């Protein structure tokens, strides 16, 4: 599948927009996109620490991490999916369905030790459904996952209806948000870091990761190079479903409430964070450190602005602007550069 929603602009405008410069490609990539996101993150953390009362405290850091936990978790596999030129909009619904099933099973009297693995398996199945529809049937993932987004959310309501299940044992709900002893960083932060490391190595330093970029750039040529594009994508969707259901389990325990409408609308936040992190919606480019930076940047700015008593309207405007600026700025910069020098980026006036 080619990336479905592309601008009419030349492909060169969207793929790495800078002309290839001398020197290490990786380094220049870090300098340009991921670097600027991480730079922006550092600047905003420093600014918030200096100017916003109550930001620079361990307790607040804990709040911040809990706030972004679900988004950060799902953003990891989503990054890989988007790099291959696909997208999964059903993640929030997968989370909701997992939550609903978890609640229902708990009501039916199963122990959580059994429920959790069942729910993870459910996530894998839901991801596999997306994957099969995309790879075997050959449908565009944007359309498929808009469909399963409605389907899974609907099934969540079918399972749990309008009820909320909230009597999970405190040992689990409290445990989900408990900090690592001696710090104020919640356990989930450590889990995210571990998963991020795993996904990062997978993407950036393994043969599999390499083929993900190749698929995103040109799936056909990658298939001609002996990569099973279908299987790769199928597994990515399975991974995304699995992680989304992990996030669902965590969400349910974090808020101590299993509901069908949990995390409604979260998919757009996840996609926004991934794109902010420098992943191209057309696939083929992007890096995991950038995505983590994007997730943290969004979380930090929202946290700091809330502490500074900035209203939620402004938060929403700032989030949107950040996303727009993050894609427009590099393009404008490239244009200005090309105007100064006669040698422009390829294929553009």
């Amino acid at each position, binding site marked *: 599948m080619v990336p479905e929603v592309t601008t009419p602009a030349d492909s060169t405008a969207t793929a790495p927009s800078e002309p290839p410069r001398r020197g290490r490609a990786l380094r220049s990539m870090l300098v340009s996109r991921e670097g600027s996101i991480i730079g922006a993150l550092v600047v905003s953390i420093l600014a918030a620490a200096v100017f916003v009362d109550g930001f620079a405290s361990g307790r607040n850091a804990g709040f911040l991490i*809990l706030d972004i936990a679900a988004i950060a978790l799902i953003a990891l596999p989503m990054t890989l999916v988007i790099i291959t030129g696909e997208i999964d909009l059903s993640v929030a619904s997968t989370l909701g369905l997992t939550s609903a099933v978890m609640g229902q099973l708990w009501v039916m009297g199963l122990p959580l030790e059994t429920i959790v693995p069942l729910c993870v398996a459910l996530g894998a199945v839901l991801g596999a459904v997306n994957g099969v529809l995309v790879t075997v049937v050959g449908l565009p993932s944007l359309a498929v996952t808009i469909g399963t987004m409605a389907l899974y959310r609907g099934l969540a309501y079918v399972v749990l209806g309008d009820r909320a299940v909230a009597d999970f044992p405190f040992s689990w709900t409290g445990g989900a*948000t408990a900090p690592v002893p001696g710090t104020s960083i919640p356990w989930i932060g450590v889990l995210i870091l571990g998963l991020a490391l795993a996904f990062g190595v997978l993407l950036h330093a393994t043969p599999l990761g390499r083929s993900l970029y190749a698929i995103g750039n040109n799936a056909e040529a990658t298939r001609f190079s002996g990569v099973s594009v279908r299987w790769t994508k199928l597994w990515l969707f399975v991974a995304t479903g699995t992680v989304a259901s992990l996030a669902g389990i965590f969400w349910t325990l974090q*808020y*101590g409430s299993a509901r069908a409408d949990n995390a409604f609308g979260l998919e757009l936040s996840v996609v926004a964070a991934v794109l902010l992190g420098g992943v191209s919606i057309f696939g083929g480019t992007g890096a995991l450190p950038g995505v983590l930076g994007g997730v943290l940047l969004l979380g930090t700015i929202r946290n700091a602005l*809330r*502490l500074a008593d900035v*209203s*939620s309207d402004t938060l929403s405007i700032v989030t949107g602007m950040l996303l727009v600026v993050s894609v427009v700025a590099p393009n404008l910069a490239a244009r200005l550069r090309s105007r100064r020098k006669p040698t422009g980026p390829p294929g553009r006036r």
Partner: protein
Amino acid sequence: GCGGTTRGSAEDSGSSSGPTTEADPNATIPEGLAISFLPKQLNNPYFTYANSGGEEAVAELGGEYKEVGPSDANASSQVSYINTLSQQGSDVIVTAANDPSAVCGALQQAREAGSAIVTYDSDTDPECRDAFVNQASAEGLALVQVEMIAEQIGGEGEIAFLSATPNATNQNTWLELMEEELATPEYEGIEVVDTVYGNDDDQKSFQEMQGLMQTHPDLAGVVSPTTVGLAAAARYLSTSEYKGDVKLTGLGTPNQMREYVKDGTVEEFALWDPKNLGYLAAYTGAALAAGQITGEEGQTFEAGRLGEYEIGAEGEIVLGPPTVFNADNIDDYDF
């Protein structure tokens, strides 16, 4: 001595404050209390109006008023705001919960950090807050709505409910109580045939109303215990062929319903005064923070122009009986 009086001291005294300590009915309410309102959703007209009462009360008390909240009615976004308020060391958090349990953990943490927690409009689990200011007793509201619809349809016929979201705490309680009431022999002739949910979304409520009319041709009346639902249903009826034949009542605001009362679509509906709700919630919070009350049953406190209130079972404080609005009195209200 109990409770923080300023930000700094609130943080210092930390976990020592809380409902377990003795109440001192004569304690004075200190100046400069930080009282923060966290509605279900910011920019929701109902809460804007209710919170204006809160602001009035905080001004009378000489405190610092603040209103924050998410732009979507989500429990998870509310949790972020509770954490923020707790981090800022707010003395009182007045909140309406989007989910009775999901906000619990955060509220308890805030309490441990020294904030007094008051819920209004929608309660949480009782152990997560110090007091709940109830707009009207659930029984009172259920009763008045049942009486209104029974009278309008002449005590006989099919009725249906048009509610808010399927998991809205208070709406569900009222529905339950209304069904109980309708099951008594007095209302033998009335049958509840359906309950639909408009999600407090105008368009959805409108469509649900329209669906009700088609599914149940013999429908005599509809009760909508939510302001959005009632207004949408009234608008549907006012232009449909069912106007006048199908009775509609429930809970609504005078400004939204004025047109439909005047054109005869709706005879009567009820509501409390949300402004007084916010006002009372602010006073309750201040009394908690000052240590006048701790949330135990039987304690009393002064709530400004509203007079004295007593805490009921499980820390619940009832604002008073609902007001019934009709063509005679509707012009006396502006909210």
